[in-house]
């Protein structure tokens, strides 16, 4: 290979490496910082586990809520996201895909429009709704709002998965004597299991990482209604200097399930982008 050819081949790699350096540096710091007393750039000035003390004793004093309660809250939100988004989306996606009814086309366009709508603009109206329902500053309220915001995407996705299932299989089941519900439950749903798994994981991660909605609709940063992303704010103070190492420790703590999920379920998540489910004729 000539010198020119070598350079030509190398250039794309060089460009790619340059563009991911900032991200990589950020993540490296995220991995080094929690285990260091202080860091100078990426260099650790002393290895320690003290930053992780929040795991076994409440930070900032004994009366302060421990991180585990908050983790449980986050887990509850994420799980309800996974369960309800999948449940409602799969129930809604089936008639949208298979049945003819008035307003079907408008409903479909509506889900797309609503999905693209910036949710931030709705924060104030939703506050009034939650207040009215006495759900302000509750985990239920937060979960409800989060599920609602995720549904348009979920419905659209599920409809796509249902579209990919062959009509013949359903017709065969109808002729065999199944009701529509049975067809949905015993025939179609098992066929699109990969798609359901993908949506569940996606919804779970969305709930786990949520910040804006939990923050807006709950009071306090560590109470019964805090989630991890909100709890993190406790470590960033105005009165004392922020202990960044502790911040990154909590941040890494929040990151662990996400990493775990992603490593083991990558292929399921990619199903969403591939747009189809395996199975069906």
């Amino acid at each position: 290979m000539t010198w020119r050819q070598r350079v030509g081949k190398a250039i794309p790699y060089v460009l790619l490496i340059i563009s991911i350096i900032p991200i990589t540096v950020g993540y490296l710091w995220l991995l080094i910082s929690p285990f260091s007393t202080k860091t100078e750039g990426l260099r650790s000035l002393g290895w320690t586990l003290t930053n992780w003390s929040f795991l076994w004793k409440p930070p900032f004093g004994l009366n302060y809520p421990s991180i585990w309660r908050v983790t449980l809250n986050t887990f509850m939100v994420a799980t309800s996201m996974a369960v309800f988004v999948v449940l409602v989306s799969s129930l809604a996606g089936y008639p949208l895909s298979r049945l003819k009814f008035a307003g079907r086309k408008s409903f479909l366009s509506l889900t797309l429009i609503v999905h693209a709508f910036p949710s931030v603009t709705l924060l104030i109206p939703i506050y009034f709704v939650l207040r009215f329902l006495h759900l302000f500053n509750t985990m239920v309220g937060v979960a409800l709002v989060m599920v609602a915001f995720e549904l348009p995407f979920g419905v659209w996705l599920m409809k796509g998965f249902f579209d990919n299932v062959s009509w013949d299989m359903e017709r065969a089941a109808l002729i065999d004597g199944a009701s529509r519900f049975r067809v949905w439950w015993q025939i179609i749903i098992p066929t699109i299991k990969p798609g359901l798994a993908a949506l569940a994981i996606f919804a779970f991660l969305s709930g786990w990482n949520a910040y804006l909605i939990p923050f807006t609709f709950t009071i306090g940063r560590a109470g019964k209604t805090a989630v991890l992303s909100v709890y993190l704010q406790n470590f960033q103070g105005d009165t004392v200097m922020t202990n960044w190492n502790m911040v990154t420790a909590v941040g890494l703590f929040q990151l662990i399930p996400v990493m775990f999920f992603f490593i083991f379920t990558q292929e399921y998540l990619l199903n969403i982008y591939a747009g189809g489910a395996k199975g069906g004729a």
Partner: protein
Amino acid sequence: MKVTLERLTKHFGKVVAAEDIDLDIGDGEFVALLGPSGCGKTTTLLMIAGIYKPTSGFVKFDGGVVNHLPPKDRNIGMVFQSYALYPHMTVFDNLTFPLKLKKTPKEEMAQRAQRVADMMGIGHLMDRKPAQLSGGQQQRVALGRALVKEPDMLLFDEPLSNLDARLRLSMRGEIKRLQMDLGITSIYVTHDQVEAMTMADRIAVMNEGLLQACATPDDLYDRPETLFVAGFIGNPPMNFTDVEVVRENGDYHARREAFDVLVPAERGEKAAGKGSVILGIRPEDVTLQEEGDVEAEIYIVEPLGRDDLLDCRFGGAAVRVLADPKLRTRIGDHVRLAFNMHKVQFFDPQTEKSLLWTD
């Protein structure tokens, strides 16, 4: 069970899928719905099954209208082109699914499933999932699933299209035999006229949503009522050419450029004096003979093994002829063609109806 279709029509918005289908199917009869893609045969079948609701018209089982009866109450079995087996269930579960829905007791379910599976030759595959079966085996499971509930009627939607040619041949015979033994009224949708001809008691030919004709295979072959039926049934297809039939000295002649052939009276009189008509003759009814009436040049020779299919041209017309391969004909040969005019067909060019068999 007798099935009657009365003025059955199905529109999908502006698209007319099937229009005014009138059909009577006797108990235990095997009727094929034959036609090209998009002719409305599957639509008609699905209306009989209850999957589609007719836009107008009636579907009657044994005289009673069943338009509003859902598929599960019609006691029918259906076999799909894609087999439509439930991929996440074993063969056993696939076969017992209809019975489970009818709340049949477990033992009876297992018995009936095994009986049907043995009949289909798949009794040893009960624990496998559909993905672990060959195409032919999957098809047998599909057939078994349709039969296990002992239906009053069997519906087939191009079930052999996904099989290889060899398997198709053997399955054709098996399905026909099975239907005869069980005596279940069967409706079989296909675009393959060989399948229809070999399996059906009667064939209903459809085109563009309309029923063209319904008759026995022989009737359709020898006495086609429309131009479409004549051209669709039979392989290689019938030859068509424009002629005028005139009466001269008591004889009927069919004439066009470079073509003048005597027509037997009973056929000629129906076509005479109508101006230009369409003459139809099948390739096997044209032979190469030294005393033939028409001179032609061979344009293409297609060896088919048992015969040679010759494309012969004369006076601006083309005629396909099935000839004996031993004649060793070649492109460019000048030959004389003899037409078996006892088998000739005539059609009205405007209505496309047969001049011989319709009034």
